[in-house]
C-alpha cells in the first residue's frame, strides 16, 4: 500500500538559504507523526510545500498518490489536506463559529446560482454544517466563545479554533503547526488526548509540528527530526529523543 503522504527529496531555497535540503518522509493513513527540529529547521516550510504555499525547486510530494507540487493551491484541500497555521490564519472580523464554518468550504457544495435562488439543498447543507461545527466547538471546549469575534481572543484559544476549522473539512491528512503554543501545561495534556482521539475516531493522519516534547512523545506513533532542512533522524519518539545527533542539533541551536 502506498503512503497517504509521500515526500521525496524536497529542495526549497530562499536566495542562498536552503530551507529544505532533500528530506523524504512517509505518513500512512491514520498515523500520527511528529515533525520536530530546532527553530528555522524547515518544519513550517515543509507544511507550506505540502499545502502549495511554497513551490519546491525540486523533489516530489504526493498526497493519496497525487502529485501536489504545481497543483493550484485551492485544489489541494479537496485531496483531503487540512492545516493550521503557526501564526494563526483566522478571519479577525468574524465570529468563532463563522471561522470554523469556513473550514467546510471544500466539503460542501452550493454554487452562485443555487445560492442566489435559495435552493432547498443549500439551506439543508448549511444547517447540517452548522450542526457539525457546533458539535466540534463543544468537543474542543469552544462553545462559550462561539459567538465572539476572533480578534478579541487569546492565542491558545485561536489555535484551537484553527484546529476546529481544519477538522470541519474532514481531512484525511491534518497538518498541525505548533498547536500547544500559548497553552498552559494542563491544557497541553488535554490537547494531546484530544488529538489522539480525533485521529482514532476520524481515521485522520496527523503530521504534528511541535516544540513541546511531552506532547510529541505522548501523541505520536513516530517522529521525524529536521535540522537545517535535512532529515537527521526518524523513528520511535522515545528513542529519537535520545539520539545523539538529535540532542546535538537541539543543543547546537540552544548554544
Amino acid at each position, binding site marked *: 500500500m502506498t503512503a497517504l503522504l509521500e515526500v521525496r527529496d524536497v529542495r526549497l531555497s530562499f536566495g542562498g538559504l536552503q530551507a529544505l535540503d532533500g528530506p523524504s518522509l512517509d505518513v500512512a493513513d491514520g498515523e500520527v507523526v511528529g515533525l520536530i527540529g530546532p527553530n528555522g529547521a524547515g518544519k513550517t516550510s515543509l507544511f507550506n510545500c505540502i499545502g502549495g504555499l511554497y513551490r519546491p525547486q525540486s523533489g516530489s510530494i504526493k498526497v493519496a498518490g497525487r502529485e501536489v507540487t504545481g497543483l493550484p493551491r*485551492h*485544489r*489541494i*484541500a479537496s485531496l483531503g489536506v487540512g492545516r493550521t497555521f503557526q501564526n*494563526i490564519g483566522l478571519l479577525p472580523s468574524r465570529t468563532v463559529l463563522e471561522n470554523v464554518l469556513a*473550514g467546510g*468550504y471544500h466539503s460542501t457544495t452550493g454554487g452562485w446560482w443555487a*445560492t442566489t435562488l435559495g435552493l432547498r439543498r443549500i439551506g439543508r447543507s448549511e444547517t447540517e454544517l452548522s450542526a457539525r461545527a457546533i458539535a466540534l466547538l463543544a468537543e474542543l471546549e469552544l462553545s462559550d466563545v462561539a459567538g465572539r469575534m476572533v480578534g478579541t481572543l487569546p492565542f491558545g484559544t485561536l489555535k484551537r479554533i484553527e484546529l476546529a476549522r481544519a477538522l470541519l473539512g474532514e481531512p484525511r491528512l491534518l497538518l498541525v503547526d505548533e498547536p500547544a503554543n500559548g497553552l498552559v501545561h494542563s491544557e497541553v495534556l488535554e490537547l494531546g488526548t484530544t488529538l489522539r482521539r480525533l485521529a482514532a475516531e476520524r481515521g485522520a493522519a496527523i503530521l504534528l509540528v511541535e516544540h513541546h516534547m511531552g506532547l510529541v512523545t505522548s501523541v505520536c506513533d513516530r517522529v521525524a527530526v529536521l535540522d537545517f532542512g535535512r532529515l537527521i533522524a526518524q523513528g520511535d519518539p522515545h528513542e529519537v529523543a535520545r539520539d545523539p545527533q538529535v540532542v546535538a542539533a537541539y543543543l547546537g541551536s540552544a548554544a
Partner: protein
Amino acid sequence: MSVVTPPQAARRADRAADGARASVAEWLRRPRPPLAPPRWLAILATALGGIALLGIPLVNPSYINLTVTLVMIWTVVGLGLNLLVGFGGQVSLGHSAFFAIGAYAVAVGGELGIPHPATLLVAGMLPFAVGYVIGLPALRLHGLQLGLVTLALAMATPAAIRAFEPLTHGSRGIAIDADPPSWVPLAHDQWIYYLALAAAVVAYLATRRLARGRLGRSFVAVRDAELVAETLGVNVWQTKTRLFATSAAYAGVAGGLYAMLLEFVGPENFNLALSISFVTLIVVGGLATVPGAVLGALFVQYVPTFTSSVSPAATGAAYGVVLIVFAFFLPFGLVGLARGALGKVVDRLPGRRG
C-alpha cells in the same frame, strides 16, 4: 500572512472589548455581528416596510416617487458594489462605467424597438460580460493599482460614450420612451417605481444569500487572507472575477432603471462624481453589510439635496468630511452604529429567532 494575530494584539483587543475603559472611538470601531431580532419582529418590520413601500407611489406626487425610486436604484448599485468592495475586498472606483453601460443598453435597445422591461435583462447581462472581461486581468492587481485602473475606467466613460457616436448619439444623448405597457394602469413614475422596487427586493435577497452562507464566508476569506482562503479550497481568482462581474451586473440593471426613470441618457450623467458617490454610499452605509446599501442610498440621495440648498460646493465638502469621519471612526458605517446601539436591546427581546 496578513491575518497574523500575535498574542499581544489578541490580548490587547480582548481587554479593549471587555474592559470598562474602552474609549468611545474604540467602541465605534468594534466589529459586531448582525442584529438578531426575534422572528415576530422581523416579520412585523418586513410587513410594515412592505406595505409602506407598495403604498408610497399611490399616494405621493411624482417628484417624491422620483426621489424614492432613485434611492432604490442607488440601493441596487450599493448592494452589488458592497459585495465586491465590502465582502470581497476589491476596490472599484469604476462602477459608473457599468451603470452607464446598463443605461445605454436600455436606451439603444429602445431605439432598436426592444420593449423596455426586456432591455433591463440586457442592461444586466452586458455589464456582467464586460465586467468579467475587464476583471480577468484587472483582478490580478492589488489595492492601489486596481483602484487606479477602475478610476481610469470611470474617467474615460463620458469620452467613450461620445466616441461611440453612431450608437450613442454622442453629446446629444438619447431620449427614451419608458411609458408603461398599455395593460398596466399606472403613470410613468409609478411604473418605474415598482420596477425599481422589484429590482431592489430581488437584489437585496440575492445579496443576502450570497453574503451569508458558504460563498459569503469564502468572499471574506478572500478579502482578509487570500492564502488561507486557498488553503480552505477557495478558488480566489475565480471568486474575484465573478464578484466583479456580478457587481457590474447590479450596476447595469440600476443604470437601466435610471435611464427609464429620466427617459434620457447623455454622457454627462455618468461622470466620475457618480462613481465617487457609489463608493461614499457603501462606506456610509457600512462596508460588508447588506442593509448598509439602503442606508447609504438614502444618504447619497438626500444629503446632497440638503447641502446644495446651502451652497453648490457644500456637497463635495460634505462627502469629503463624511468619508474621512467614517474611515476613522465608523469603519462599519451606519449599520455598525445601529448594531452597537441596538444590539443589546434587540438581543433581550423575547421570542424565537433564526
